[in-house]
């Protein structure tokens, strides 16, 4: 097996204005290899399959344990985390492209800051009075903890947004991740103080109504977060809130 190789095709773009191009690479295969380790290999020896010198590939990555959410990219067409994309599970040549729904920076790097802006827009935090010692927090029963913990596992990788047919500049859809965070904070005994505000925020343009329920989000989520359940629950809550607001005038 010494001469087993891995073939990659990587979409390159030197800057937002530069033309796109594909480069092919052929690397020696090693057990347990993933897409990031392949790109590390390229950085140490930046030569294409045709033997041309090239530049190391620009990509975001950090933890390599699928918990920091940095390395989302499209691999063989599908949005996923590059660190957990094991080479042996992928059809070759492995085609690697940047996420398509976010502004490109360079090569596989994109700007995903819109998610963090969305989290601000829905006040995705628990408004504690202060960080001084105020005694223990509210009681939370294990059942509630078990319901909230999966939502709190969102790594902000934006895969759910990338795969969503409704997430695009025309709709300005907020995406499943933010909706799930609204559910998380509305469930929290203290976080729910902003419940109504969050629900109203989600009824704004680009809000929850733009969801087409294609359910791609829940399929693509690397953390198996119950996103569609969150959309349904929050969809109902937003509706109830809007009706209440309307009745109250």
């Amino acid at each position: 097996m010494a001469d087993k190789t891995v073939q990659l095709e990587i979409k390159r773009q030197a800057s937002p204005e530069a033309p796109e191009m594909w480069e092919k690479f052929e690397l020696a295969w090693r057990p347990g290899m993933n897409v990031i380790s392949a790109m590390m290999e390229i950085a140490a020896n930046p030569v294409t399959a045709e033997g041309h010198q090239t530049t190391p590939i620009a990509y975001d990555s950090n933890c390599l344990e699928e918990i920091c959410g940095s390395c989302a990219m499209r691999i063989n067409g599908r949005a996923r985390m590059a660190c957990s994309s094991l080479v042996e599970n992928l059809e070759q040549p492995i085609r690697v492209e940047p996420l398509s729904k976010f502004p490109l920076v360079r090569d596989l790097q994109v700007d995903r800051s819109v998610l963090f802006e969305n989290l601000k827009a829905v006040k995705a935090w628990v408004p504690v009075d202060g960080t001084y010692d105020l005694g223990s927090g509210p009681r939370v029963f294990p059942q509630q903890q078990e319901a909230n913990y999966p939502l709190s596992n969102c790594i902000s990788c934006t895969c759910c947004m990338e795969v969503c047919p409704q997430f695009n500049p025309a709709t300005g859809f907020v995406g499943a991740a933010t909706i799930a965070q609204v559910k998380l904070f509305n469930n929290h005994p203290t976080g729910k103080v902003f419940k109504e505000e969050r629900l109203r925020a989600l009824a704004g343009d680009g809000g929850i109504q733009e969801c087409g329920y294609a359910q791609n989000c829940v399929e693509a989520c690397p953390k198996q977060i119950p996103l569609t359940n969150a959309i349904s629950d929050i969809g109902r809550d937003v509706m109830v809130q809007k009706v209440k607001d309307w009745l109250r005038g």
Partner: protein
Amino acid sequence: MATIQQPAAHTVRRGVQPLRAGEGNSYVWHKLHSLLGIIPIGAFLIEHLISNFQALGGPVAYGKTVEFLNSLPMVHVLEWVFIFIPILYHGIYGLYIWLRGKSNVVYYPWSGNWLYLTQRYTGIIAFAFIIQHVIMERFMGVSLHDHPGAAFYKMQQTLANPWMVAIYVIGMLAACWHFSYGVWLFAAKWGITPGTRSRRRFGFVCVAGGVLLAVLGLGSIWAFVGPKYANAPQNVPISYLNAPAHTGAPV
């Protein structure tokens, strides 16, 4: 603060914009679209398919149904307010929704994603079909309001063209599909079926309902094209429709 500028800085393009928290009215328009699909459009679809199913009973039975509907108070107002305007809104706004979505089943061939796509195609097919159907049968040819007994013959003439049969079958199936999946979507998005299991179970209900509606629809098409009433009369007089317990052949 001091800076050292680099030459020819690039700019990153604007991407999808953040949520406009609480701003705008698109929520109301979206939800109106969603609601109208169920009530009154969906309700009317069910009523219409059941009424049409009466065609299997022949020209007289069908004429009677039409006449009953005609007898509803302010029927012209009702049909505009509860049928034509809602359908126009639902169809046009639906097109707007469609144009803003970007399907990606090529990369993500998952069932929900396929259904997302088919909901758009069945919607446009049903909408086009309904427009031609209303123009041809409601606003052109003999007025069924004045001559309910002519309903059967009018349809039969339309469906004498095999192309029209194909169009009706396709339009009918598209409408049934669009409606039954639409009900499922409505329940999912309005939080009536918030759990994975409840959505799956309700999915079976919607499939069963959709199949039932399709059977009703196809059955009524069969009534017009089948051999049984091949020689239906051009018109059944109103007096005849109103005659009690009549069993004989038309005049």
